């Protein structure tokens, strides 16, 4: 098992990666730090764990999918 990290839209372009696989992560903030090599985190970044909105201190478990993305602009 592992943790899948995904980046979307402008954030994907800024970070330069669409997906990163991590062996382990304690929470969403830690997943960000590992997946981006400690890139500074823009204030407006949103996070979802397993397709639900979460917080950066939300716990991440083995097998989780953690997604980071900019403010949504659909509709």
């Amino acid at each position, binding site marked *: 098992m592992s943790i899948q990290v995904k980046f979307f839209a402008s954030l994907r372009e800024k970070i330069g990666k669409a997906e990163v696989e991590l062996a382990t992560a304690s929470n969403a903030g830690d997943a960000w730090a590992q997946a981006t090599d400690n890139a500074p985190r823009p204030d407006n970044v949103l996070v979802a764990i397993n397709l639900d909105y979460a917080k950066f201190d939300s716990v991440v478990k083995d097998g989780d999918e953690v*997604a980071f993305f*900019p403010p949504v*602009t659909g509709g």
Partner: protein
Amino acid sequence: MASRVSEQHIDPWQLIAEHQAAHRQNGQFGAAASFIGTMRDFSERQNLSKMTLEHYPAMTGQYLEKLEQEAREQWPLQDCLIVHRVGDIYPGDAIVIIACWSAHRRAALDACNWLIEELKYRAPFWKQEFNPEGAHWVEENTNGHSSN
């Protein structure tokens, strides 16, 4: 549930008419409210030639279903349809289509109104606009009570 994303161009009024003809029985519903969001050829930038709508497929699928379900729990709807475009979109193309059917008018109108606001602020879609100067990610939806 019929709510979904679409990678194909949609004729919005025809889509709603066909959905109604297929799923609603004449004489059973009293009200239908709809909202259609359409791409303009300008926004804060001019001469838009194209827009690309990116999404988070697994999350949008689940999110649209959840939205529809929440609307059906909050209001006595007889039917509800949400279709959101993804991929390449051109000026005049429909971006999002919402339609709600109910016995009485307030349920359909209020649910339709709630759904478009929820979609705008929560659903994981992102717009990238193209004009002669290049590509530009839309940074955020403007205020809920004044924006497109």
